[in-house]
């Protein structure tokens, strides 16, 4: 772990530096307009830089502005407040996790069916793959509207969109994992006259565990994207998606960027959490060489 901190930090610093340069460059034209209207000429370069980084509605807010906004909307607001980012993150996180759990279970279930039935392998797998070629932005409003028409609203429709995105990597990963036992291990089970169920529980499933964790890492990140996309057509009531949409309605770039940064931090933490779970599980299985 300690070996990766340094390089990651260097890249982070580089990103921040590029961000500052880009913010100055993008906000400078508007700032020059302001100076021109106020009749100010010969503004020192340093002041121009300072002013471009402190605009109220910048085209590209500076990292400091985003950090201040995040601090302001997390620490300085009550969690129950509509303006608290923690509140919105919580809303998004709940549908992310619900959708992720459903997607993972669905993915495992489909993989088990596909691995055990040639017919389902031929008939189901093409549909599983083509399901991901449809743009999620097109599907999301339909799911929200259709479910709303039959009286289901709130968390579940958003979670369904997360499910839709997260079941796919799990299905593909688990099909690969459940098929990965070596021939010699399958022959061994045959010499014991093991049933298909025994072969599944005692050989295929443990073999697939590393594959499951790898696909869950992809799945949970996709789940978060699904939850945010699912919040857009609901009219931006609550959630990180709502913050993004409201921000773009009112030209609040600082709000959009802070929601974006929080979303990526959340995604990173979720993936790291799955990574920890993976480490603990493999250690318990004696496969943590």
């Amino acid at each position, binding site marked *: 772990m300690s070996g990766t901190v340094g390089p990651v930090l260097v890249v982070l610093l580089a990103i921040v530096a590029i961000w500052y340069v880009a913010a100055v460059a993008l906000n400078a034209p508007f700032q020059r307009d302001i100076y021109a209207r106020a009749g100010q000429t010969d503004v020192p370069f340093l002041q121009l830089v300072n002013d471009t980084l402190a605009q109220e509605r910048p085209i590209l807010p500076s990292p400091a502005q985003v950090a201040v906004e995040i601090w302001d909307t997390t620490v300085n607001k009550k969690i129950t407040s509509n303006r608290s980012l923690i509140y919105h993150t919580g809303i998004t996180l709940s549908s992310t996790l619900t959708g992720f759990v459903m997607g993972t279970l669905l993915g495992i279930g489909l993989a088990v069916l596909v691995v055990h039935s040639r017919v389902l392998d031929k008939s189901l797998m093409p549909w599983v793959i083509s399901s991901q070629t449809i743009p999620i932005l097109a599907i999301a409003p339909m799911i929200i509207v259709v479910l709303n028409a039959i009286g289901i609203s709130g968390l579940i429709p958003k979670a369904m969109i997360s499910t839709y995105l997260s079941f796919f990597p799990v299905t593909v990963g688990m099909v690969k994992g459940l098929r990965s036992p070596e021939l*010699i291990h399958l022959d061994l089970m*045959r*010499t*014991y*006259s*093991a049933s298909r169920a025994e072969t599944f529980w*005692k050989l295929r499933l443990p073999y697939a565990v590393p594959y499951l964790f790898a696909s869950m890492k992809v799945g949970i990140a996709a789940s978060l994207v699904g939850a945010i996309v699912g919040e857009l057509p609901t009219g931006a009531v609550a959630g990180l998606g709502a913050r993004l949409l409201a921000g773009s309605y009112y030209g609040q770039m600082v709000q959009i960027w802070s929601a974006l940064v929080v979303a990526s931090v959340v995604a990173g933490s979720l993936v790291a959490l799955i990574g920890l779970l993976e480490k603990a599980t493999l250690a318990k299985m*004696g496969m943590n060489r």
Partner: protein
Amino acid sequence: MNTAAQLYTPAPHGDRAGPVIDIEKLSLTFATNDGPVHALSNIDLKIDEGDFVSFIGPSGCGKTTLLRVIADLEQPTAGRIAVNGMSPEEARLNRAYGYVFQAAALYPWRTIAGNVALPLEIMGLDAKEREARIARNMELVNLKGFEKKFPWQLSGGMQQRASIARALAVEPKLLLMDEPFGALDEIVRDHLNDQLHQLWAKTNKTVVFVTHSIPEAVYLSTKIVVLCPRPGRIYDIIDSDLPRQRTLDIRETPEFLKVAHRVREGLKAGHSYDD
């Protein structure tokens, strides 16, 4: 002698008089894109209870295929085969044999004891019986004290011994071994040969053993089957007159060398048209 007599129990299907394995005019042809491959052709072989039989021959002679036919892992295309008077499939379903593969094939997520327990769980034995069999067979292969280790913590030779313990734990009267020591170095191999010989002498099991090594085959066997390739067939069957009780020193005796010579001649003759 007493222990051997105690461990000896009659075959379950009352077919005691007959051979454990009875093969008549057996052939196996694989269909491939380049046309049929005659893996086995016209095999006739009888293996009696308590025999230690080695299949020896160059690569591609069908020795592993023949073992897999006995184990019902391959299906013959012609001829007749009976294992304990049953079809190989019935024998497999009755768990009549233990099979040791070329590689140890231990499950990495199970401890050594857990690996030995695997077939016992599938057989539906209760925990007490499982414990007893694990303890007994771990001791038999000299792995006592390694129960809680994971496979990767053991050397290759120890892993293969664990896989033998796993096969023995089923308590089969027939042990099928496919080049079990092929991947091990000479010193470990000698040691395991000695242990396997003692195990066989102690338990009076019938063993069918596939190998590349002439000294290994002659040292272990009461009967040596020399196979030759294209098509895979039996070239010679040698009944060894070496005493049942032997030590590794026997490999220096004229009797041993005589048998080894006949095996070598068989392998040479079976191979000659190839060059």
